[in-house]
C-alpha cells in the first residue's frame, strides 16, 4: 500500500511510547476494586530534564545546544560593551574637528586613524554604535508593542474588526518603506527619539500580522472558551491567555526587528538623512569614507562596515536560535 507508505508519518502516540511528559510515574497500591478518590490517584513524580516550561531555562538549554546563537550573543555583548563602555576608557574629542589631524592612518594616539575632518575613528565608531543600537532597540520595542497590541486585538475579535484592522496594515505595507523614510526624515529634523518613532511606526506591520495569525489559532482553543465561560472579559483573556502563548513569536520577531532597524538607520545615515553632524553614525562614517576609498584610506571604510555586519548578524543569529527554541517548545507544549 504505497499511498500509505509515502504518507506514513509516525504521529501515532504508540510510536513514542509512554511519553514521559504525559505519564508521570508512581502509582498507589490501592486494591483493585477501589474506584474513587485519592486512593486511586497516582502521585505524579517530578519530571526530570524535560522541556522546562520557563522561558529562562529554555533559553539556557537552547544556548547550550545552539553554538551559533551563543556566538551571536557573545558578539552582541562585546559590541554593546565596546560602544557604551568603550568611551569610559578611551577618550577622544568628537565635538571639535581637528583639521590638523585629517585622515591620519592608524597609529599611536589614533588606533584606527582619523577621518576627513580629523575625528578619531575608534571613538567615532563607539558613538556611532551607541546611536545605532539605541535606535534599533527603541524602534523594535515600539514596533513590537504596537504590532502585538494591534494583532492581538484584531485576531481575538475577528470578523469585521479584524478585517478593518488588517486592511489598515495591508494598506500601509503597500507604501514603499524606504520612500516613506526618505520623505519623513527630510520633513523632520532627525534626532534619536524621532528616528525611533519613524522606524517603529514603519516596522510594526510585521509583528501585527504574526501576532494576529497566532491569536487566530489560540482564540479557538478550548482554554480560551473556558475562560469566556468563566465570565472573563476580552482584555483579561488577551493578556492572560493569548499573549503569553505568543511570547515566542514575539521575541523572535523582536530580535529580527532590531537588526532591521539598525540596517535601516544605517541606510538613512548613509544617504545623509540620519542624525545630522556632528553626531556620529555608522552609515555616515561609511558614506564619507567611501569618498576616500580610492585614495587607499581603508580605515575609513572597513571599521564601520564590519561593525554594522557584526551587530546585524549577531541579532539574526540570536533570532534564529530563539525561533528554534520556541518551535521545539511549542511542539512539547501542544
Amino acid at each position: 500500500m504505497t499511498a500509505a507508505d509515502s504518507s506514513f508519518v509516525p504521529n501515532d502516540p504508540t510510536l513514542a511510547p509512554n511519553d514521559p511528559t504525559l505519564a508521570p510515574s508512581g502509582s498507589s497500591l490501592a486494591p483493585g476494586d477501589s474506584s474513587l478518590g485519592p486512593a486511586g490517584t497516582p502521585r505524579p513524580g517530578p519530571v526530570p530534564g524535560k522541556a522546562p516550561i520557563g522561558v529562562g531555562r529554555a533559553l539556557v538549554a537552547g544556548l547550550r545546544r545552539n553554538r551559533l546563537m551563543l556566538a551571536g550573543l557573545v558578539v552582541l555583548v562585546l559590541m554593546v560593551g565596546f560602544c557604551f563602555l568603550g568611551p569610559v576608557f578611551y577618550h577622544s574629542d568628537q565635538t571639535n574637528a581637528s583639521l590638523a589631524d585629517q585622515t591620519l592612518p592608524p597609529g599611536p594616539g589614533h588606533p584606527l586613524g582619523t577621518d576627513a575632518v580629523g575625528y578619531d575613528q575608534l571613538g567615532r565608531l563607539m558613538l556611532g554604535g551607541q546611536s545605532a543600537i539605541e535606535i534599533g532597540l527603541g524602534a523594535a520595542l515600539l514596533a513590537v508593542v504596537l504590532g502585538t497590541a494591534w494583532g492581538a486585538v484584531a485576531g481575538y475579535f475577528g470578523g469585521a474588526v479584524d478585517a478593518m484592522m488588517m486592511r489598515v496594515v495591508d494598506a500601509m505595507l503597500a507604501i514603499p518603506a524606504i520612500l516613506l523614510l526618505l520623505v519623513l526624515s527630510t520633513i523632520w529634523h532627525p534626532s534619536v527619539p524621532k528616528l525611533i518613532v519613524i522606524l517603529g511606526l514603519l516596522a510594526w506591520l510585521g509583528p501585527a500580522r504574526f501576532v494576529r495569525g497566532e491569536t487566530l489559532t489560540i482564540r479557538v482553543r478550548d482554554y480560551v472558551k473556558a475562560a469566556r465561560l468563566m465570565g472573563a472579559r476580552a482584555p483579561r483573556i488577551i493578556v492572560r491567555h493569548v499573549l503569553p502563548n505568543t511570547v515566542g513569536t514575539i521575541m523572535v520577531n523582536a530580535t529580527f526587528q532590531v537588526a532591521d532597524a539598525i540596517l535601516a538607520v544605517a541606510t538613512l545615515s548613509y544617504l545623509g538623512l540620519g542624525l545630522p553632524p556632528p553626531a556620529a553614525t555608522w552609515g555616515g562614517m561609511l558614506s564619507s569614507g567611501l569618498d576616500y576609498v580610492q585614495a587607499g584610506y581603508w580605515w575609513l571604510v572597513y571599521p564601520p562596515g564590519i561593525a554594522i555586519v557584526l551587530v546585524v548578524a549577531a541579532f539574526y543569529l540570536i533570532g534564529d536560535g530563539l525561533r528554534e527554541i520556541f518551535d521545539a517548545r511549542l511542539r512539547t507544549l501542544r
Partner: protein
Amino acid sequence: MTEQHIAARVENLCVDVATRDGSLRAVDGASLTIAEGEVFGLVGESGCGKTTLGMAIAGLLPSAARTVAGTVSVAGRTLTGLRERELRRIRGDLVGVVFQDPMTTLNPTMKVGRQVAEPFRLHRDTTARAARHAAEQMLDLVGLPNPGRVLDAYPHQLSGGMRQRVCIAAALICRPKLLIADEPTTALDVTTQDQILRLFQRLRAELGMSILLVTHDMGVIAANADRVGVMYAGQLAEVGPVLEIFDSPQHRYTRALLESVPTLDTDLSRPLRTIPGLPPRLDRVGPGCRFAPRCGFADDACSAADLPWRELSPMHSHRCVHPRGLSRAEHSHG
C-alpha cells in the same frame, strides 16, 4: 499448527524507540504466532506498544525505532535484518496495512484509482490498464457502490467510511497473506465501524488472509478476533483464544481491563470498577510484573526478575503470578 499454516511469527521481539531523553523499550520480548486465516486481536491501552509491535510485523517501524532482539517472519520470510529496499518488496505484497485515519493515509491530491492501483503496479509487472482494472475490482470487492466512478474521485469527495474502504482496497490489492489493521475503526462512527468490521470478516473469508487487528476496544476484539494478545507497558501479558480470554481471563490486568469497560449491561447502581493509577513510564520499569503497582493481588513474588509464561492450555498462556484460575461456575455461565 504446522509451519506452513503460520501467516506470521514473532519471537522474543524487542524494539527500542529513541526519544529526546534516551531510548525506551517500546516492545519487550513479545512472541506470538498468527495462523493462516486467523484474526489475531492485539489489545491494550495507548502507549502499551501494540502499534509498535504491529508496525514491526509490517516492516514499517519509524526511523526512531530499532529492533534490538528477536525475529519477525511473515509467510516464512524473515523480515528482521532486511534492508529497506528488500522490506519495500514485502510491504504491500506480503503484508498490507490499514491505518486509523483514512484521511491522512490517502494522498489528497491523487485520484483514488491511482492510489489503490499503486501497490499493484509496484509489485506486479503490469500495465496501467490492468492495474486500473484490478483497482476497480478491489473497490467492488470492498463494497463501494459504483467502483468505476470512485476510481476517478478524490479522497475528500468520499465519506469517512468510504475512505477507509478505499484504504482497505489498496492494502489488499496484491492479496497479501497478512493484513495489519491498526485501530482501523477508531476514527469512525459506530454504525460505520460496524460496516467496516463486517467487511473485514467477509474479506477474510473470501481472500483467506490473516488479520492482525490492533485496537484498544474490547468490544471490537470480542466481535472479530479468534485469538487475543493483551499488551501492557510494552509486554504481552496474556495470549489466548477469544472465548477463553473473555470467559476466564487469567492475567489480573486482562480481568481488570474487561471489568472497567462499561457496557449496555453494566449494573448502574454501582460505580464502575476501575484500575487505580496509571500505566508505568517505560523508562522507569524494573524487573517483575509491570502491572503489580496497580494490582490488588500483587505481592513479593510479583517482583521476581523473570516471570515465566504459564500455560493454561496449548493455546492460552499468561504471565501472571496470581492468575485468577478456572472457577467452574464462571466458566459455565460465560
